[in-house]
Every structure is written in structure tokens, then in C-alpha cells.
């Protein structure tokens, strides 16, 4: 595929527990095109999150290659990989993972601190990102002063602040009520269409999967 942004080639992953290995992914190959919205579904323990972590560069495969945007991320050093993530990946977590002692503004600013942007430029980025998620008026609120849906929107603003090519979302609606979940999915859809973000989303939620362009199922470490 000419415009493929993610290539997972014959990847296996096993975790070591004490003296034996527990296989999680078994010789998986996957390609994601630029601008795609991929939904990964499957029962608990099927390896969805592990696959997502490999694609996002926070974990390394036991075997095989993961190439994202032309970079074989398995070959990068720990430091280079951290830098790569800061530039190319936006993370959205099930439990939002906002830093509780920082305001919405400061949370969104965090990944920008890793860039060479000036304070004024960072401000522009933060304000824009919060505007996109519709929380420009909650900039100076702390996470605990926000609802779950709002927290997740701040987390999405944080994920897009540096304008990464790839967004990875692990059960982004898993902790939300129906309406908030709907809002978040609509927002992700908009980011995909309007801002051309490639999204890989792990989900249990069939409604969430509906929003994805492509849905792949994982079962017992194998891609169906």
C-alpha cells in the first residue's frame, strides 16, 4: 500500500512471568493507511492493547518489525523513541490520565514542553487544541473540577496539541456514560476527517467500532 503509515510485520510479543513466557501476540501483520480510523476489537486478553502499545512505541515486539511513518521504531534507542513519541503520537487513555495537580491548560501544554516552541507559541497551540475539543472556557480548571467527558476531551486536546500524525486511543469511551461517549466518538471522527489524523482505537464498544473505517478483531493473539 503506497500511503500506508503503519506496517506491523510478523510481530510476536510475549511477556515473561517468572521463568516462563506468556505469548500475547502471535505473528501478526497489519497495515494501516494514512488517514484511516482503525478499530481494534476483541475479548479481554486478546492482545488489543499490546498491539496498540507496540504501534505507539511504548513497548517493543519480541519478534518482527513495527514501522510507523517510515521509521522502524524497534531500532530506536530509549531516548530516541521518547522523542519519536513526543513528535508523532498522541495518546488517549481509558481513564484520561490527566495530571491532577495541573490545570486543563497545563495538561495540554505538557507535550508542547518537549518541543522548541516559545511560550507564546505554546499558548496558541493549547488554546487552539482546547477550542477544537470545545473546552476553551475550562482552561484553568483542574481535572477534578471537570466531568469525565470533559476530562477525556482535555486528554484529547493534549493528544493533538503537538499535531501528531497518529492518535492511539485505548478504550476512550470505556469509562464514560452514553452521551459523553457519543461526544468523544464524534470528536474523534472529526479529528479523523477534518484534521486528517490517523487513529488506532482499541474498544469493546460496538458503537465506538461503528465510527471506525476499518475494524479488525483480535482473538488469542491472532488477527482475524
Amino acid at each position: 500500500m503506497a500511503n500506508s503509515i503503519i506496517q506491523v510485520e510478523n510481530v510476536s510479543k510475549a511477556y515473561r512471568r517468572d521463568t516462563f513466557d506468556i505469548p500475547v501476540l502471535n505473528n501478526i501483520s497489519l497495515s494501516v493507511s494514512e488517514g484511516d480510523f482503525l478499530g481494534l476489537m476483541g475479548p479481554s486478553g486478546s492482545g488489543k492493547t499490546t498491539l496498540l502499545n507496540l504501534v505507539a512505541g511504548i513497548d517493543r515486539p519480541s519478534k518482527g518489525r513495527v514501522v510507523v511513518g517510515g521509521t522502524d521504531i524497534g531500532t530506536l534507542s530509549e531516548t530516541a523513541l521518547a522523542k519519536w513519541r513526543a513528535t508523532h503520537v498522541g495518546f488517549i487513555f481509558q481513564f484520561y490520565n490527566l495530571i491532577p495537580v495541573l490545570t486543563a491548560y497545563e495538561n495540554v501544554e505538557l507535550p508542547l514542553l518537549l518541543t522548541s516552541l516559545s511560550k507564546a507559541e505554546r499558548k496558541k497551540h493549547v488554546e487552539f487544541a482546547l477550542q477544537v475539543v470545545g473546552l476553551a472556557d475550562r482552561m484553568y480548571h483542574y481535572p477534578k473540577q471537570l466531568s469525565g467527558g470533559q476530562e477525556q476531551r482535555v486528554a484529547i486536546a493534549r493528544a493533538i496539541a503537538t499535531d501528531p500524525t497518529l492518535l492511539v486511543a485505548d478504550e476512550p469511551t470505556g469509562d464514560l456514560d452514553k452521551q459523553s461517549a457519543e461526544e468523544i466518538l464524534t470528536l474523534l471522527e472529526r479529528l479523523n476527517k477534518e484534521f486528517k489524523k490517523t487513529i488506532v482505537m482499541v474498544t469493546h464498544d460496538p458503537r465506538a467500532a461503528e465510527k471506525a473505517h476499518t475494524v479488525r478483531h483480535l482473538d488469542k493473539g491472532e488477527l482475524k
Partner: protein
Amino acid sequence: MKIPLKYTLRNFRSRRLTTAITITGITLVVFVFTAVLMLAAGVRKTLVATGSTENVIVARKSAQGEISSIILNETYNIVMSLPQVAKGSDGKPVASGDVVVVINLPKIGAEAGISNVTVRGVSQAAFQLRPQVRVVEGRMFNWGAREVVVGSSITRRFEGVQLGSTIKFGGDVWSVVGRTDAGGTGFDSEIWGDVSQLQDAFSRQGAFSTLTFRMTNPDQLDQIKRAFEEDNRLQQFEPKTEKAFFEEQSQFMAIFIEVLGIFITVFFSVGAIIGAMITMYAAVANRTVEIGTLRAIGFRRRSVLAAFMTESLLIALIGAAIGLFMASGLQFFTVSTMNWGSFSELEFSFTLTVEILTYAVVFAILMGITGGFLPAVRAARLNIVNALRSA
């Protein structure tokens, strides 16, 4: 790029109690550490200020202090004939042969018991040699009478030495006719009288303990030393500047306080370090997901390490600041204890110096680094996936 400092500072606020307890631990250690060094510095300062660099004190080489030194009249006369001995307007040498003895006096307070006090018999030139000693109450003792003037610290701390009282020692009764102030020097802890009266009372006719004279020029010590070495009759004696002599008297005591104090505080500090370590380990455990998130976003291991080290160092520095502030209040207190250099009671105050301040801050930083290092390393080495999974 570093994890912002406000992250660290606000985390303090979010767990006020544990932070406060840890800071208290460090504060107490810094306080004790500083107090001990201030005590030692106080002894040094008092005794160093006692002596002048313009005066030379001569004592027997083998003597440990003034009370164990003996200088006979003949020696006194030989020394007085040296050209380096300054002469007063009356043509007489500016010199005092002193007799120094130690007596027992009861301390003020029911349970305080008795303690040693230095009694110094001086010649007339003594007040010219040591102008810091002034009679501030009552009058000067009369030469040829069994009268004494008492240093201010002695008046404060001992019974029966106040103006108008009489003291029994050396087989006689001595009237207290005046109180002296010696500007916080060691002479404040002494009783002074006429040397000939003391020689008589203690059967030391024809002998002094030490002799002190003013040099015609303050840089003549080397010449004087050479003169002592070249003269057979003076070889058993050693001339030193008065300042150096009293400084040596402070060494044993100051070093003893320092060594004992540092030994104790190092033990205390182990407790404070363990406290800081527990706090920091708890901080890491509570924030595992945050650490995982920061690392996923792209913050490096060393940024996480730095953030937690900063946190631990800040705890230590805040503790140091409070501890030093408390210790600085000790400067208003004076203490009195036995100075083993002279075997008698010496009063001195806690003295804070820039050096002590630096030591205390460095000590606190070391506690912060030691307590924070392992938890910070643990935070930095967390596996991102595992850290995120602990949500």
C-alpha cells in the same frame, strides 16, 4: 525539556501532611547539626577573642595550660630585658606576670553544685595589655589588698561572688569590690586580683604562671622565638601570640563538641533520610500512572529522575531553611561549661558563621540526595506499559 517545577510544587500541596512530617525530620537534624557547630564556633570565638595579636604570652613548654606553667622571677627579668618588649610612658615594660589558679565556687541554682573558676593575679600593666577588661560596677581592687574584681559571667552564674561579698580561698578572705566586663571574651569568666597577694596566698613567691607582654611591633614574634631558642635560660619556655595561645586552649573542647555532635547528627540523619525515602517511595507509588503517562507523552527517563530528585531536594532545602532559622535564634543564648584547656568554667554563646551555614545546607542537600535517589531511580526505570496498567 524538564517536567515543570509547578508539577513538583503542587504535589507538595496535594499531600501536605507527609511532606510536612518529612520536612520536620530534616529540620530537626539540621537544627541539631547547626547548633552543635555553633557551640563549637562559640568556644573558639570566645577564646580567640580573648587574646590579642600584639601581645606575647610566655608559658613553660611542657605546660598544658596556664595553671600548670611556672615561670620564676629570674626568667621574668630575662624576658623583660628583650628589646622587643614594649615600654610604657613610665619607661616600665608593658607586661604582666600572672598567677593563675583554679578555685571551687558554688553555682547558682539548688542542684547546680560547685565548679571551677579561674583566679588570675595580675600586675598593674594587665589592664593596659588587655584594654577590653574594664571595671563596670564598683571599683578596681587596691594593689596590696586582699580584694578582687569578678568577671560578669562569674557574677551571673556563681553564688557569693556579687559586689560586696567575700570569697574564701587560698587560706584567706577576699572582698569582691568590682565587676568587670571583658566584651564576651574568656576574661569574663575569671576573677582578677593583685598578683603579689595571690603569690602570697598560694605560697608562690618568686614565681608566676605565665607572663604576657606587648611587642614594640606586632611582627616581632619570629625574632622573639629566635631569642628564646638562642638563650639557654629561655629554652624551656615558649612564646606565642596571646591570640594563638587562647586559640589552642579552645581546640580540644571545640573539636570534642564537633566530633561528638557530628557523630550524633549523622545517626539522626539516617532516620531523616529513611523518612525522606519512604515519603518519596510513596510519592512514586501514588503517581505510577502519572509517571507512565509522562513517559508515554515523550518525557525522558532522566526528566522523571530529575523531577523526583528535585522534589526530594526541595523537601531537604525547606527543612534546612527552617532548621537554620531556628538555630539562628540560639545566638541569643549563652552557655557555660568546663573548658578542659583551663580546667575552669567558661561562658560562651552560640555563634553562627557563613561556614556553618554552608555546611548545614550541604548536609541537608546530601540528605535530600540520599533519600531521594533510590525512589527517583525507581520512578525513572518504571516500565511504561506496566505503569499505565496500574490505573
